[in-house]
Every structure is written in structure tokens, then in C-alpha cells.
């Protein structure tokens, strides 16, 4: 999954780099099958190591066993319900964190006073590693759902805030001047000039914050969970079921990939004006 520099201010060139990468994907219609050789060889090697006893199942289950357990967990509904619980946590935490990040980002991006008031504390707080806040969150919120949502929200809010704020501040002054002499109202300037020009950077922030959301969830679910994928994994650890642990990890990875693909698709649609 894409755990890219959570909570770190994305550099301005990241936006353009991400944007330039889009047209390239059109050329990728024919995948180079040779790139599959080494991953497949690794899985085969893993299977051979397991079958020959070099890799004991209490350390790591074989690929075949993992696959079998995955089928089983899907069939008896365990994986499905765990998935829904974890997904709910991410969505809930993301909704809270994104609202906070976007509202504060807009306030401090669009108004000088907003920046004076909100930017200093946010810039100070972002230096805290948000995953390190778990002890405090447990003291504040107990060990139920709240600390998990809070941790995800904290992971989401900062990258979104920082990138939205930076995106707004990067607006080309030439375009703002032009819109002024063309008689745009203040609202029109924000709507047609400032916000669209902040969008590429904001989408970079969205991608980082979604990565942070999954990472936060994984950590939060390690602490104490009575449901969800983290619970599935921890429970399996108690019984040395490494196959189930691996299945859980794979689900995390797939979810991360899926959300990343979603944002990419979104970028392609929203930033289609960049295609040349």
C-alpha cells in the first residue's frame, strides 16, 4: 500500500510530477510480462521452502495454505464482516479528518487572518508523529471505537491541510491579476482561479492522507480491537495461525491499492485539462 510520507509537507513539484505521470499510463496497454518472472519465482520459492520444512508453518504459512485460509475466511463470512468494520473505521475517521483538514486549509489559504490564527498551531502539531498519540488518545477516549477514529482522522487532516494550503498559496499571481482586470468578483476569483489551481496539490494531499488513513487504522487496530481486520490478525497470532495473519495483511494491502487507484481515477477525471 502507499504509505507515502504521511504528515510531511509535499513539495510543490510533487503535484506536477503526479500530473505528468497520467498521460504515460495510456501507453501501458501492453504489460511487460517479463516483469512477472521474479515475483512468481519468489512465490514458488516460498512454497518450496514451506513444503520442504525449511519454513515452519508457525513462522510463515505456505502460499497454498494462505490461499486456502483466505477462501475459508471469505466463505464463512469472517473476512467480510472484519472488512466492513475496518472500512467503516477508515471512512468515519477520514470523513472527520478530511472535514477538519479542508475547512482549516480553506480558512488559512483564503484569508490572511485565517492563516495567522490557524497555521502556526497546525504547523507545530504536524511535527508530532501522530501515531505516537495513541497513549493520549486511549486516556482521552478509552479503548473503544473513538481512539481509532481519532487516530485515522489525525492522520488524514494534516496532509490534506498542508497540501490544500500550499496549493492555494501557489496560485499564479499572473492569473489573479488577469482575473482582476477582467472584472471577476471575489467569489469568481476563488471559484475559477484559486481553487482549481490548488486542486492538483490537494489531490496529492488526498493520496497521502488516504495512505495515512490505512496506516493509522492498522496501528489503531493493533492496540485493542474486538472486531475488524486487526482483530482477525491479532486473534490469529494467539493461535500461531500465520496463514490468517498473512491473509489480513493482504487485505490491508489490497485496500490501500484500491483507494490509491480510486484517487488516480479521480485525478484523471478532474485534471483532464492537463493532458496535452
Amino acid at each position, binding site marked *: 500500500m502507499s504509505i507515502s510520507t504521511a504528515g510531511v509537507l509535499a513539495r510543490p513539484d510533487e503535484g506536477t510530477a503526479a500530473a505528468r505521470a497520467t498521460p504515460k499510463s495510456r501507453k501501458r496497454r501492453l504489460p511487460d510480462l517479463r516483469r512477472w518472472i521474479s515475483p512468481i519465482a519468489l512465490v514458488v520459492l516460498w512454497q518450496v521452502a514451506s513444503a520442504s520444512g525449511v519454513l515452519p508453518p508457525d513462522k510463515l504459512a505456505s502460499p497454498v495454505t494462505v490461499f486456502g485460509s483466505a477462501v475459508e475466511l471469505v466463505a464463512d463470512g469472517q473476512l467480510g464482516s472484519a472488512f466492513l468494520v475496518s472500512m467503516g473505521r477508515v471512512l468515519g475517521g477520514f470523513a472527520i479528518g478530511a472535514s477538519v483538514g479542508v475547512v482549516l486549509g480553506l480558512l488559512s489559504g483564503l484569508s490572511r487572518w485565517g492563516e495567522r490564527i490557524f497555521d502556526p498551531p497546525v504547523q507545530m502539531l504536524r511535527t508530532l508523529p501522530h501515531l505516537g498519540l495513541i497513549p493520549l488518545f486511549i486516556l482521552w477516549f478509552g479503548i473503544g471505537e473513538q481512539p481509532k477514529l481519532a487516530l485515522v482522522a489525525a492522520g488524514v487532516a494534516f496532509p490534506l491541510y498542508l497540501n490544500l494550503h500550499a496549493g492555494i498559496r501557489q496560485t499564479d499571481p499572473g492569473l489573479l491579476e488577469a482575473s*482582476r482586470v477582467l472584472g471577476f468578483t471575489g467569489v469568481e476569483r476563488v471559484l475559477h482561479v484559486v481553487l482549481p489551481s490548488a486542486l492538483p496539490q490537494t489531490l496529492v494531499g488526498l493520496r497521502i492522507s488516504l495512505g495515512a488513513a490505512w496506516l493509522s487504522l492498522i496501528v489503531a487496530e493493533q492496540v485493542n480491537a474486538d472486531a475488524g481486520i486487526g482483530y482477525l490478525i491479532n486473534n490469529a497470532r494467539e493461535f500461531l495461525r500465520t496463514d490468517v495473519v498473512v491473509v489480513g495483511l493482504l487485505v490491508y494491502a489490497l485496500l490501500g491499492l484500491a483507494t490509491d487507484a480510486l484517487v488516480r481515477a479521480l485525478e484523471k477525471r478532474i485534471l483532464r*485539462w492537463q493532458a496535452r
Partner: protein
Amino acid sequence: MASAVSVRGLVKEFGERRVLDRVDLDIAPGEFVALLGRSGSGKSTLLRILAGLDTDVDGAFEVPGTISVAFQQPRLLPWRRVWRNVSLGLRGVDGRAVAEKALAEVRLTDHVDAWPLTLSGGEAQRVSLARALVREPDVLLLDEPFGALDALTRLAMHHLVDQLWREHRPAVLLVTHDVDEALLLADRILVLDEGRIVAEHHVGLARPRRRASFTDLRTSVLADLGVDDVEAA
């Protein structure tokens, strides 16, 4: 008849440096004035002041009518289609229809729905012209609008601007350092040097003009700019 632009004793200072030094300027309605000068002569500053982009000045200036500006860079919004770029900011009109008409005038009918980044430099600059003209300004300020274009495109643009001006008849202030451009297009040429208007020429030639018709005038304008005209020698 009231002036379209009237400037009296305009002074602009950046720190210690006096960029504009008691400039007086009048432009009649429908008059095409070219403001020539070397880089740093203050010509773009004067245009920016008239456009309302630079407000910290001494002296008086008045532009009673509406103003439109075309810059050296087209400054289109890359995330709005071409026609939206032309019509944005207009009120109380059918934006699409108005934009289509204006784009037809600059011969860009085929690019109405294009994204600005897909346009060539000349095409983008034509959109910028259409955007300026669609506002039917009393005063059109052109800040080296052909400076970033290649020589061939520039020739075509001179022609287009000449045509559009004769059709719409706004008062024009064209800031440029291209003497031929000024001679081709303007009724009157002002030479700005170190913040002062140091020379004025009336170009009483019929339009469309040919280069051959203004060689003598060219030599004297170049002399005002401190350049020897080797072609005349």
C-alpha cells in the same frame, strides 16, 4: 471630446528609483497609441497603473470608460475551456454565444471547446485578445502582447490586431519595444525613456501599412531610442 485616457504628472517610485517621472498622456477615444521604450523605461509600469494593478502612485490619471488588458503571456485559466475563458466574468449575457462570436473574429472557431494547454502560443494569444475584446472596452491595454511569439505568428497577429481595432475602435495603448510594430499599428508613437516621454510622432499613413512606407519615420524613432538605423545609412 473627453479623453479616453488622461494622465497628469504621474510619478511612480520603487524605493529610491523613480520609474515614472511626471508623465503626461492623453489618448483620444478610438486612438491607437504605441508606447515605445527600452526594457526598464517604465512603459509596462505605466500600463499596469492604468489597468489598476499598481495603485501606489502620485499624480493624477483618469480612465472614464471600461478597460481591458491583454498581457505578454496569454494568462488563460488552463482548467477552463477556451470559450469559458473568453466569457468568464461577463454578466447578463449568453456566455457561450458571445464567446463563439468573439472566437470567430480571431479565427478560432475550431477551438471553442479546447483546453488552453492544447493551444499553440499564437492561438492562446488570440484567445486572450478575444477575451479582452468581448468586454467591448473603451480602452484596450496591450502589454507587449506579441513579445513571446515567433516572428511569423507575430506578423499574422499585427494584421489581426489592426483589423480588430478598425472594427471595434477602442482607444489602444500598446506597450512594445518593437519599432516596426508601432509604426504598422499606431496613430501616434510615444517614446519613454527613464520614466519620461521624450518624443512623440504622429504616423499619418494609410492602413494597412507597408514597411516600405515608413523608413524615414523609422529612422527618427530609432534615433529617439538611441539606436542608429543601419538600414538607412
